[in-house]
């Protein structure tokens, strides 16, 4: 890897991602980003300087050897390149699409100091898609250890932990409460950003590794953690995520037409309400949709509403554009499609028609004060600035908190006052043989940080199991 001299004709900006045109895509659920062609991937790969001391790796929560896989790609050794990625990350087609690379690996990229960083995410996606088209190769597994593990929740954290554990030779059973595996990847992130067929393919791969999947098993109700352990499981990983929607506690929040983002996205993604009545779950989209919040979930909700036929979709966010927590790419995509953002405003109450359906929302304007504990400037209401916004559909996307069922039904499992499970840096909880990771420990975060936690915990579980006789 001594090839550190930049070649002369290297472009400063990244090779742009081919996308569906905004007008067309605002009316369909097909994937927006189409993926690099081989030529585009090679051109982008050539922008990598193959640094002797690569910074990008330190920005990756699962420590993919980024220069190594890019070098293999440059040499057109796609099979070896994807094998290099997969030795660290079992869900590359998903991460290549939904990781906030701009805040992670790409933020540390040296090329980024003089131009745009190498678009590592797009290269990861290119290789993962290439492999899926070829058919997966199943890596060799370690000798069976005879140890049995259970993984609670088939989302990003759980899928990663399960894959790591099975590769190390342990028996793994995943317990998933919903009727489909994938967690937030299947119920939360919409088709146009992450096609469900890709989630299915990556989950299939994990099943092919030997992981057993049990659907419709809600741990805490169907069975509890202590019962799972009593039934001969040597270690448990809890990756049950942050699934509980938050509401604002405002008057009128229970009116018809007001959804939590979770309800809205579950109806659309998991239950396929966009195909009602072929699918039985309905959704009703009005003409003037308002989405409250500024994160990726808000963007996903707004863009879904637009695709379901809303005439106008407005995102109401209490801070300014600068503080929007959503990925820049997703904000750009949303605005290109015609979604409007109303900054520095917050709802006060909802107003309904005579049938109890929302028809308007009273808001108040905000100004930004000094930074709060999150480091972002605190929004302060401006007295007398109240105004009324007409709306017939409101989607509340202000965050999710951990589901409390497992904590309530597992004696001795220590939790924080926010309901997250307390775990050390290796995912070890207050209970012997019980580990946890992902949103259930950190609160709502990213897919990749959950995967990183799943991986770390799997390592710790392995050490624990091998020490235990």
């Amino acid at each position, binding site marked *: 890897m001594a090839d550190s001299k930049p070649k002369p004709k290297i472009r400063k900006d990244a090779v742009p991602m081919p996308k569906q045109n905004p007008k067309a895509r605002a009316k369909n659920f097909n994937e927006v980003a189409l993926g690099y062609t081989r030529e585009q991937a090679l051109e982008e790969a050539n922008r990598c300087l193959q640094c002797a001391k690569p910074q990008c790796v330190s920005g990756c929560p699962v420590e993919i050897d980024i220069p190594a896989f890019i070098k293999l790609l440059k040499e057109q050794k796609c099979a070896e390149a994807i094998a290099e990625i997969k030795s660290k990350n079992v869900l590359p087609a998903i991460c290549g699409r939904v990781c906030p690379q701009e805040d992670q690996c790409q933020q540390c990229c040296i090329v980024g100091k003089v131009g745009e960083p190498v678009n590592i995410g797009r290269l990861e996606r290119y290789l993962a898609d290439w492999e899926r088209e070829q058919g997966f190769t199943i890596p060799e597994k370690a000798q069976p250890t005879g140890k049995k593990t259970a993984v609670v929740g088939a989302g990003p954290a759980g899928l990663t932990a399960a894959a790591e554990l099975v590769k190390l030779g342990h028996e793994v059973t995943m317990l998933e*409460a*919903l*009727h489909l595996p994938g967690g937030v990847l299947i*119920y939360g992130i919409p088709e146009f950003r992450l096609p469900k067929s890709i989630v299915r393919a990556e989950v299939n791969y994990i099943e092919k590794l030997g992981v057993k999947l049990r*659907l*419709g*098993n*809600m741990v805490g*109700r*169907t*069975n509890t953690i202590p019962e799972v352990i009593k039934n001969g499981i040597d270690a448990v990983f809890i990756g049950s995520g942050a*699934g*509980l*929607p938050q*509401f604002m*506690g405002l008057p009128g*929040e*229970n*009116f*018809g*037409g007001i*959804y*939590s983002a*979770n*309800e809205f996205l*579950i*109806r659309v993604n998991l*239950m*396929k309400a966009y195909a*009602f*009545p*072929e*699918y*039985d*779950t*309905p959704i*009703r989209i009005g003409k003037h949709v308002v989405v409250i919040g500024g994160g990726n979930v808000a963007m996903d909700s707004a863009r879904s509403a637009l695709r379901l036929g809303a005439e106008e979709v407005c995102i109401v966010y209490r801070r300014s554009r600068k503080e929007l927590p959503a990925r820049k790419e997703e904000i750009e995509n949303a605005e290109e499609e015609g979604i409007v953002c109303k900054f520095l405003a917050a709802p006060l109450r909802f107003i309904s028609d005579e049938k*109890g359906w929302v028809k308007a929302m009273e808001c108040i304007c905000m100004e930004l004060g000094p930074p709060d504990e999150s480091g972002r400037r605190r929004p302060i209401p401006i007295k007398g600035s109240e105004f009324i916004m007409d709306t017939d559909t409101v989607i509340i996307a202000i965050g999710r908190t951990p*589901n*409390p*069922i497992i904590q309530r039904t597992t004696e001795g499992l220590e939790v924080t006052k926010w309901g997250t499970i307390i775990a050390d840096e290796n995912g070890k909880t207050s209970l012997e043989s019980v580990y946890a990771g992902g949103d259930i420990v950190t609160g709502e975060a990213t897919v990749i940080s959950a995967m990183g936690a799943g991986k770390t915990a799997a390592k710790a579980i392995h050490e624990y199991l091998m020490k235990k006789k």
Partner: protein
Amino acid sequence: MKAKPGQFIILMIGEKGERIPLTISDFDARKGTVSCAFHEVGKTTKKLGLLNEGDYVETVTGPLGNPSEIKNYGKVLCVGGSVMIAPLLLQVKTMREAGNSVTTVLGARIKDVIMLEDEAKAMSEKVYVATDDGSKGYQGLDFLKDLLKKEKFDHCVAMGPVVMMKTVSEITKPYGIPTVVTLTPIMIDGMGMCGVCRVTVGGKMQFGCIDGPEFNGHKVDFDGLIQRQRIFLPEERLNSVLWEIGGCACGRQ
């Protein structure tokens, strides 16, 4: 199998089906089975009614929700309406096993919908029947006011249509009889994720699926609940009618 009285299941009839909650009305731990009674009102329940013994549904998840608090209260009044009479009788049975003396009220719109009367009689100290139209037993639930004047009850369980539970709660409130109602709001996942089952109890937002399904009847905002239950009525009716018209083509899965 660890079902307990008061809990429910979520059922999905086919791959394209909706997820609906059904209250558990009986279970057999040894066989690993649960029983649920349902009214054929929408597409899912109508299709469910067409299934034969041995047929399969796509998914059953459960038991979900918090179990009932069954203990010796003393004298318990159990009021059940229409299809919820079935799970009510499970309450009657377990309340009696816990040492309570149980008076049971079976209510329905018309006499044809009154069910399980003999079973109720076999398990209860006393059984009253009431119908909205007076075609059997008392007309309406007003007779309960007289009953409560005469007899003292320590606890009340009401399961049935929201309007019925609201009426029962209003009648028991002046007597200070703790009244537990089982709410059946719209649900999707049934495990706390979507919040569609939110209901106001004592001025606080609660989720029917994970905070309930049983709540203090004297604190529930029943009118709000009724409004929320009707949110998707047009779509539900449309889907049911569409299915009936095209019935045979996509009927049994």
